């Protein structure tokens, strides 16, 4: 057994491709006309139509963030004959978006499944919100050490990290604003976006209320209802589909030493959790930051986007104020087009799977804010949670 053979067998690079994507209509939180499970089905069927296959060809499901649409119920509802993969990535928020793609791809690459759908569905009217504190008399466990002090929502959890990073590196509010401006700019070109027709100006941002310093209203993601899905098959099979193959170059997940230490005790605290993950992402993909043509970075809060862009090597932490300027992030003219569908801030908060779909559309040339000749398209999923994940898609020319 040679080292080369072992090494080449242990990568996802070029082994799997996306052949179909789909989403439901995106709704404001609580406004979906349908239950969550039906939304999941609609997105999956739409993705199958986009790929030109019958839903019965699916033999695997992967998701994340404890998606409530059970794989076996989906398989039964869709009449699937031979379910081969039912996989859930641990962890909350959107940290699992690209990990669910990695898990699906690993199964396909190793013969565990042939045609896997990655999906995420959310109906908060049916199941309740993220951004509200719990209303009960007592609380125990880790939450007992934070909630009684009024620290109870994701915005409040992550503001603490971002504040420390901004302190350490002298980051100014305008850096966060540039991220929000990019998402809203791109949403004005995207009719699917919930914020389509609702442009943002610097003045509106500056005058918007604080949610929790350093986050203004426009630094925080929406909460939405809807569902999104993506169909993956092996690279060999991918040539027979309507779209040109969108190859997976890399997909990794994880977190650093004791990132999950309770009560804000991660030793390396002011981080997007990508310091150990990003080097593995680039190593598997065989690319560097400078090769990336277009970037989707999950905005739970703009501060996480900022730290994740730093930790993926696009910018030195002490040069954030110079790097995070509006024009850099706009498609097609900027040198790092960012969140080109409008992202979680302005397209839809589908726990980030919409970002992965947008990255694929960039490779296909189908984005509403298309980057010229996009060949390397990257996604950063769920900064600041643990585990996080990221992936890189490539056009035929990258293989």
């Amino acid at each position: 057994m040679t080292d080369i053979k072992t090494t080449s067998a242990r990568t996802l690079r070029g082994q799997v491709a996306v052949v179909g994507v789909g989403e439901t209509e995106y709704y404001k939180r609580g406004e979906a006309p349908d239950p969550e499970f039906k939304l999941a089905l609609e997105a999956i069927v739409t993705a199958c139509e986009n790929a030109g296959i019958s839903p019965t060809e699916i033999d695997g499901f992967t998701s994340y963030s404890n998606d409530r649409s059970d794989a076996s119920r989906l398989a039964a509802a869709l009449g699937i004959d031979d379910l081969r993969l039912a996989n859930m990535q641990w962890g909350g928020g959107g940290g699992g978006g690209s990990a669910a793609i990695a898990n699906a791809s690993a199964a396909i690459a190793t013969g565990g499944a042939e045609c896997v759908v990655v999906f995420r569905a959310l109906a908060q009217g049916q199941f309740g919100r993220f951004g509200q504190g719990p209303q009960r008399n007592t609380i125990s466990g880790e939450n007992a050490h934070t909630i009684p002090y009024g620290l109870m929502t994701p915005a409040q959890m992550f503001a603490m990290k971002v504040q420390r990073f901004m302190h350490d590196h002298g980051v100014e509010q305008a850096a966060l604003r540039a991220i929000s401006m990019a998402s809203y700019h791109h949403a004005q070109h995207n009719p699917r976006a919930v914020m389509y027709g609702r442009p943002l100006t610097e003045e509106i941002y500056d005058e918007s209320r604080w949610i929790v310093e350093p986050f203004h209203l426009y630094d925080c993601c929406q909460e939405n209802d809807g569902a999104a899905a993506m169909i993956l098959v092996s690279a060999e099979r991918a040539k027979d589909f309507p779209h040109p193959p969108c190859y997976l170059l890399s997909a990794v997940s994880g977190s650093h030493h004791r990132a999950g230490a309770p009560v804000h005790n991660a030793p390396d605290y002011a981080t997007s959790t990508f310091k150990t993950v990003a080097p593995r992402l680039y190593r598997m993909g065989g690319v560097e930051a400078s090769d990336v043509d277009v970037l989707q970075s999950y905005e739970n809060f703009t501060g996480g986007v900022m730290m994740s862009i730093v930790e993926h090597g696009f910018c030195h932490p002490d040069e954030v104020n110079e790097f995070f300027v509006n024009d850099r992030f706009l498609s097609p003219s900027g040198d790092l087009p960012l969140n080109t569908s409008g992202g979680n801030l302005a397209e839809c908060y589908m726990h980030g799977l919409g970002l992965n779909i947008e990255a694929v559309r960039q490779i296909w040339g189908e984005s509403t804010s298309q980057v010229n000749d996009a060949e390397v398209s990257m996604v950063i999923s769920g900064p600041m949670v643990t585990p996080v994940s990221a992936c890189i898609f490539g056009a035929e020319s990258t293989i």
Partner: protein
Amino acid sequence: MNDYYLNQGLPKPVASPDGLDGPFWEAAQQGILKLQKCRGCGKFQWGPEWICHRCHSFDLGFSEVDASGRIYSYERVWHPVHPALKEQGAYLVVLVELPHADQVRMVGNLIGDAEQDVLIGSDVKAVYEHHPDDDPSHTLINWALTQ
């Protein structure tokens, strides 16, 4: 009127049913800071866990700690996310690093004007906010700048 930092009505802390943090909450009601300490390697860890992350000993206890530290990070909350905080206005949450306990961190409120400038690195000391008449009775640990 009372001396509580936050308006009443948030969930009240109780010891974890599995017993992991019971000694912490009991000590707090007596105005003492006790944190988890490993008998194997003598180091503190927080939040509490069943095993020491350094030496993997299961022999863990709770030790009293000098209840002073410095502000590692902070946030000023404006948007109320709980009905009890509707009339609260802004409030300050601090993450405090404890040099006497191997730099573990705790979350609490910073006593004083909610709109004060907060400086990361400032020295603080614990302020015990006792709620003896609540059901269940409990004590919160807040922080005040050291003059």
